């Protein structure tokens, strides 16, 4: 089933607040082979002017996908999760996420298009602190494979 193009422009409520921890940053950094000491040692991070250990550049995906979950669950969009493939991903960091940050992800469907029997959904997600500071903007394109493509 194709994704309903009429959901383009729709925004979803913010995800539950996510608190970035030193432990999660260290765990994630190790998992992607990130060795910058500023992921692990707060003193080194602070010596570079950061408030605490900094998250690797793709850490934000864990939080942005919490915002995107609203899209996945929207019955009007009609997304078949079992046919979903991650097509593109982009991050714009206004500053790095640091341990202690609390952010919520708010997702808007930017675009829905059909091509070759597949649906492509572009989602724009902002990670915002309680003070309203946008730390990271993430854009994801997911491809929902058509029925004939098993």
């Amino acid at each position, binding site marked *: 089933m194709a994704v309903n193009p009429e959901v383009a422009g729709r925004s979803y409520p913010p995800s539950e607040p996510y608190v970035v921890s030193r432990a*999660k940053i260290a*765990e*994630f950094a*190790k*998992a*992607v*082979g*990130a*060795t*910058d000491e*500023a*992921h692990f040692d707060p003193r080194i*991070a602070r010596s*570079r*002017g*950061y408030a605490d250990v*900094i998250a*690797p*550049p*793709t850490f934000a*995906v*864990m939080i942005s996908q919490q915002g995107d979950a609203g899209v996945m669950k929207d019955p009007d969009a009609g997304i078949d999760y079992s046919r979903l*493939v*991650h*097509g*593109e*991903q*982009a*991050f*714009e*960091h*206004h*500053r*790095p996420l640091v341990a202690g940050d609390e952010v919520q992800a708010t997702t808007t469907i930017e675009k829905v298009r059909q091509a070759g029997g597949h649906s492509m959904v572009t989602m724009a997600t902002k990670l915002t602190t309680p003070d309203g500071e946008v730390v990271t903007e993430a*854009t994801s*394109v997911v491809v929902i494979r058509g029925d004939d493509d*098993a």
Partner: protein
Amino acid sequence: MNEQIAAGDVIPSRTIHVDRATLIRYAGASGDFNVIHWDEQTAKSVGLPDVIAHGMWTMGAAIQPVVDWLGDAGRVTSYSVRFSAPVPVPHDGGADIEVGATVKSVDGDTASIDITATSGGQKVLVRARATVRLQEQSA
């Protein structure tokens, strides 16, 4: 360091090895437990050649040569990729990803970097680009 950096500069390339343990670790760290990333039978039943790496693992690993060259992960201000092919990770021997990066342009304190990632001769990321700040910002 930015005075020496110019368009065309090549960032040292790297071969990154990935095996099943890498994927299990990424699944745990990221919370992405999609079965196609750890169970061969399931992966093959949906038409994949084998267990495949998480695209987000590949994206996360492929920026590391740039981070090491830069000396500070916090100065990667944007990073985008398109996932062009899956990375099959066989039980025996795993897989290798060849990552390269080149400075595309420099504008004051900002550089644009083009990144390439191939596995088994196939491009696994395309339109992979990062923007970095070349100098430390005064705190």
